[in-house]
């Protein structure tokens, strides 16, 4: 039958055509709705002002790997799709990639971490610990140890090795951080400063010995912070400011708990009944869950060691844990109150200037209870929580990625931009030894 063979061909051809058509349109498409608008902001020259968190400090040191994943660097990379320009950072060289040196986790013994310092390939240029100078354009202006009050103290440039390395010899000791960050013709800025104005005091157990661990007066903070914001917005620039986290949200104060110490003591001497501390007010009393012990206490080698009278350290009222190891209940109330005051200053200044607010205070409080993001559980547990590095204060690469998204969401929300967020799964938590 002629008709049949004709039909056969026709059918076969249509079938083939259909297959080809399907194959061509084979790819499932999803409309992309972000990464195409800067909104009312201009990201062509972004500068990041801040402290250690901004610099990429992690694991107790500033080193190249951490610098590369500092949250401003992650934000800047995402900004490139919406008009962001290049972003320069004072990176250590590959030969001196370990920068100031940092801590690594060398072993987990029955779940307890052994931390050892990295001491090779440092960028230390002299015996006093000063760091190899960096010259050239810098947009990541984060300086470990920087505080709102010390940003206005020119001598701090000589005392702080991270600022010293960025200053010329003539600037050292004469140029303040406040002066250093100006004149950079930025179009956009982030400002996350003030943590150390409270944290310096807290991480010294509420003991003030020098300018780096004083609790900055509330009204001084307000005045100086407004000077910073005014300088950064002098040309009408837009930007994002971040609030200061509650100091008790970090592993540094939540790892060595009173209960854990007591359990450890009981394991050796079942009669151990209480942990004794010396408070900031000078009293000696039994510690409770409301008193926080600093993370380094676990490796300080003090606990339980008998004194000359044979009384074990921390386990007898006559040999209590010293004030500087403990952020006691009253000190916590005090430092929390200061942080709340600083944050209300930051928010009201931001509102008056129309700036975005990255509320890291609220966010890190959520991290403290635990979040699950893109299949990754994140919390503020030491080592296992994934967000905080081995110093218990600073962020892991994963933590930086998460915080970068807090900033990006705040910027997008304020300025109608749509900077793509960071894929946090591409960034690691703590490295575990093999």
């Amino acid at each position, binding site marked *: 039958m002629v008709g*049949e063979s004709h039909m056969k061909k026709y059918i076969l051809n249509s079938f083939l055509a*259909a297959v080809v058509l399907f194959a061509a349109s084979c790819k499932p498409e*999803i409309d*992309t709705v972000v990464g195409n608008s800067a909104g009312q902001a201009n990201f062509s020259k972004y500068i990041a002002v801040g402290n250690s968190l901004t610099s990429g400090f992690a694991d107790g040191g500033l080193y190249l790997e951490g610098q590369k994943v500092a949250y401003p660097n992650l934000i800047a990379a995402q900004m490139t799709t919406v008009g962001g320009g290049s972003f320069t950072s004072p990176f250590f060289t590959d030969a001196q990639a370990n920068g100031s040196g940092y801590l690594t986790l060398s072993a987990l013994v029955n779940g*307890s971490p052994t931390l050892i310092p990295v001491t090779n390939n440092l960028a230390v240029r002299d015996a006093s610990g000063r760091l190899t100078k960096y010259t050239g354009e810098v947009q990541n202006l984060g300086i470990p140890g920087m505080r709102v009050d010390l940003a206005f103290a020119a001598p701090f440039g000589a005392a702080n090795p991270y600022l010293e390395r960025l200053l010329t010899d003539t600037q050292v000791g004469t140029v303040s951080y406040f002066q250093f960050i100006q004149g950079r013709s930025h179009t956009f800025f982030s400002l996350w400063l003030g943590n150390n104005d409270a944290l310096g005091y807290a991480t010294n157990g509420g003991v003030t010995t020098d300018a780096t661990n004083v609790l900055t007066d509330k009204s001084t903070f307000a005045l100086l912070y407004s000077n910073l914001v005014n300088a950064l917005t002098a040309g009408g620039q837009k930007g994002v400011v971040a609030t200061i986290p509650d100091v008790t949200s970090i592993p540094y104060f939540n790892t060595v708990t009173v209960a854990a110490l007591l359990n*450890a003591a009981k394991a050796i001497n079942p009669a151990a009944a209480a942990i004794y501390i010396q408070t900031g007010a000078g009293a000696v009393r039994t510690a409770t869950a409301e008193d926080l012990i600093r993370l380094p206490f676990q490796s300080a080698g003090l606990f339980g060691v008998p004194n000359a009278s044979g009384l074990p350290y921390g386990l007898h009222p006559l040999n209590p844990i010293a004030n500087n190891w403990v952020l006691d209940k009253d000190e916590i109330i005090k430092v929390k109150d200061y942080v709340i005051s600083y944050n209300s200053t930051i928010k009201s200044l931001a509102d008056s200037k129309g700036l975005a607010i990255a509320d890291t205070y609220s966010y890190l409080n959520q991290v403290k209870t635990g979040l699950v993001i*893109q299949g*990754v559980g994140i919390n503020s547990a030491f080592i296992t929580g994934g967000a905080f590095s081995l110093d218990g204060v600073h962020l892991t690469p994963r933590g930086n990625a998460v915080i970068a998204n807090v900033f990006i969401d705040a910027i997008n929300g304020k300025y109608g931009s749509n900077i793509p*967020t960071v*894929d946090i799964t591409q960034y690691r938590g703590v490295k575990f030894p093999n």
Partner: protein
Amino acid sequence: MKKILLSVLLSAPLWVLGQGFQVNLQGQKQIGMAGAGSALALDEASVFFNPGAVSFLEKNSISAGVNPLLFKSAFQRTGSNVTEEVKNKIAPPFEFYAVWGPKSNKWKLGLGVYTPFGGLVDWGDNWSGKYALTSLNLKAIYFQPTLSVKITDRIGIGAGFVYNHGDVNLQRALPVNFPDGHSGHVTLEGTGSGYGWNAGIYINTLSNITFAVVHKSKVNTKLNDGTATFDVPQSLKTSFPDGNTFNAELPLPSTTTLGIGVPLSQSTTLAFDASWVQWRVYKELAFDYAINTSALADTKSARNYRDGSSFKLGINHQASDKFALRAGVGYAFTPVQNGYVTPEAPDADRYILSAGAGYSFTSKFEVNASFFFEDVKSRKQKNIETGLDGTFKTLVYAPGISLTYKW
């Protein structure tokens, strides 16, 4: 001194089944008709579609077919401008049927071996959802011996016993990092088995409009002693010990189908199937590890599926003695509720389109081909358990061919 517990380190691996795992490829002729045909005594694939219709088949026959399936899924994380896609991997759903009975007798025996559930997705080891899943290869192979009896000239009933052999390989990244920064990885691999049945009734009315009621039972598939392999840094080996095994249960749901066949002319038949898939049995997925540690607890993940359903309309046109043409359309409602969509089965409501053709070289030898296409709707989701937040879009392509010998 101080013990750092690894207790909250990880939530354990998850595994889910979806409509996406229900594979509607069980007979080339029916595939060409979008999967409709329970009310047609078309061929030996009635062993699957309606055991009651088997006794109405005129000839004894044996057939084998395969439908290489390409599951093209894409994901765009919320807030991202990057679309990620699964790797191109071909899953091989297949079907084998044999039907035999003494000529002009009232009964027939049948055997079916087919793959009603399965999934093959490989998102790669470094995509943005890697901590939820990197890859899944799931196969359920049903073996179904069947007896079908004509109880009158117009009514047939049939039933088969179902044995399921299941195979699974599920992998995901673990958010713990090696010294060089790369993530840990877990592979869960195992085989399991389950039992069920498939029964149907076929009614040919005086007007030659045919009806079918078919029920395929739930097949609760038990996986015992599957291997759980954790690739983690040495320092975490005590938390994720080598040589661990797991048990799990997979309730493959029952399906009830109502079918209608309408002869439009001597050569053209319309088939309509409405199926109700009782996915509500899938309340949770539990993994029971042989060795538990402070970081590796048994898991129970809520799934909370609701029942799914599908509607399929197909047409079979016998263009000549030797040639047949087929086409079909369908629509399926997903059983996966909002908040429970996962990369294993990025499920959503879907459209089905199909076409097919058959050619009889001789009265004994026949070849059938089909092309099956599913357009799974785009679905923006944030998974309640993993927090995976983004939009999934999936297209499914499955060309197929089968050979039949009749006598």
